[in-house]
Structure formats: structure tokens, C-alpha cells
């Protein structure tokens, strides 16, 4: 089978760039909706912030796994 196209160079960086798209969108949604919720109900700021940070942490883990994997399995 002949190779028609090849990607060379720092594939880890490309992989991380792709891996960061999803979490980027997710974190944007979380904080956007969080700010909106705080604006609508400033009195429940504590609970909203708590859950906002929690959601942020869970989403961010995906981007971070994408960041670490090239270092661990890249060789």
C-alpha cells in the first residue's frame, strides 16, 4: 500500500490542540451559564460557584489528560 499523504513533525502538539477543543467549549459553557445564574440569583452565589468550579474541574481533566499523554506515550 503506497502512502499518499503523511503528517510529520510534532504530532503530540497537534493531538493536544485537537484534544483541547472539546474541553474549551465545555468550560466556556460552564462559566457562561454560571455567570448567568449568578446574575439572575445573586443570593445563591455560594452554591453556584461551588458547582461551577466542580464542573470546571471535571471538564478540565479531559484537556489535561490530552496534555499529559504525549509526554507519557510520545516516545
Amino acid at each position, binding site marked *: 500500500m503506497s502512502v499518499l499523504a503523511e503528517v510529520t513533525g510534532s504530532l503530540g502538539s497537534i493531538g493536544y490542540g485537537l484534544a483541547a477543543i472539546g474541553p474549551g467549549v465545555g468550560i466556556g459553557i460552564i462559566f457562561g451559564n454560571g455567570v448567568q445564574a449568578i446574575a439572575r440569583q445573586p443570593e445563591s452565589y455560594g452554591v453556584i460557584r*461551588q458547582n461551577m*468550579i466542580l464542573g470546571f474541574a*471535571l471538564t478540565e*481533566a479531559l484537556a*489535561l489528560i490530552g496534555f499529559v499523554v504525549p509526554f507519557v506515550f510520545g516516545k
Partner: protein
Amino acid sequence: MSAVVVATESCHLNSGCGFPAPSADIFFLQPYATINFFGMDFTISKAVILVLAVVIIVVGFFLAAARPQKMVPGKLQSLGEQSFLFVRDQIAREVIGKDGDRFVPFLASLFFFVWISNLMGVIPGAQFPIMSSLAFPVSLTLMVYVTYIFLGMKHQGPLKFFTNAAFPPGVPKVMYVLLTPLELLGLLVTRPVTQAIRLFANMFAGHLLITTFTVGAYYLLSPSLIGALGSATSFTVTVVLTGFEMFIQGLQAFIFTLLTAVYIGGSLHAEH
């Protein structure tokens, strides 16, 4: 090629060598000594010394703050009480509820240990975030893992804890085919893995970023316009990133403790 090469060979922009980008090598520290202890090799490196320093700082601070318990607290006692109450009010009571008061000592120790460990990444002289060595977050996470599994088995019953988690109520029966493996996987594998990886990767990424810009500032320093401008910009970015990194370090310590509290809270009461 690493950051060490730049410092020793004085590698600058127009001296013919390429940009020596720092790699993951900077996290593998040179061991100072190796101690053979009952057939196991213990390596003493910078990380080990820093961890001991953090333990002494945290324990020493809280001992000093708690020792002379006065009715009218002094500055040190106030600070200690405020730190402790922060964990109680912002994390334990907010997440677990009134039951959370029992876990405040555990959560507070976790929070301050992780925070000061992370802070070692920006303190001049130390400048190595301890949690960027995977072994440390993993051991902390294992402690948390054992704690919440044990608490769950104690409060909900040894088998009931797992069935409660595997079969969340209020879901159509057919969905259990899909949901049960996912819930069990989440409880037993994904939770500890992500909790450890999150802390590790944040500190790793942050330290690597700061190192890259620091090396960049040194590398670009040369008698040319682009060199001077680039070096100044890179140095400014380093300073700004250091401030940002301090914020991230506090946030990650907070998130680590918050997740611990969430997991403990989930073990104490089954979902209804």
C-alpha cells in the same frame, strides 16, 4: 537538550544553536543520595526534601497557632482559625453538610498540604512544584480513595454501597445495561485516576510553561532589536504567568479538597 544546557553553554539567539526547549526531563531530579532501607532503595532528591519542608511548615504553623489558645486570639491564632474555618465553611459544610464537621481536620490537612506543596513551584530557591511528580498526587489520591470506599461501606453497608452506586434510582430498567458499568467504572477507576491526573497535570503544565518562557527570555537576550524586545516580552510573560500560576495552585488545592469532600459526602448518604 534541556534548560541546563542553556545555562552552561550560554546559548543565545545568534550564537548558532537552536532554541533549547525544556522538555519533561526537567521533572526528573538529580538524586542527592540513595539510602538502602530494609532492602528498598529510597532516593533523596529535591522533591523529598521539599515535601519534608512542607510538612514541617504546615504542622509547625498549625501547632504554633493552636498552642496558646486565648479568648482574644492574637495575629497568629486568628490566621490559623481563619484558615481552618475557610475549609469548614467553604468546603465541608457547603458540600457534605452538618456531618462534614467530622472531616474538617482531614480536609484542612489535605488542602494546606497540597497548597503549600504547589506553592513550592514559585518560591525562589525551591521552584519545584512537588505535585508535578506523579507519585505524590497518587499517594494522596489513594488515601482519599481508601477513605471514601471505607466510609461508604461503613455507612451504607458493605454490599449496599456498591449496589446503590451501580443502580441509581429513578432510571428506566433498560438503561441499567448501559448505566451500571459506567457508574461502577466511575466509582472505582475514573474518580481516583482523574483526581490524581488533574493535580499532577496542572502543576506539570504550569511549571513547564514558566520554564519555557524563562529559558526563552535568556535565549533571546542578545544585542539585536528582536532579541532585546523578545527577551523583554518573554520575561514579562514569565512574571505574569507566575502570578497566574499562583492562582492556579490555590485553585487546584481547593478543587482537590472539594472533590474529596464530594466523594466523602457521596459515600455518607446514598443518592435518592
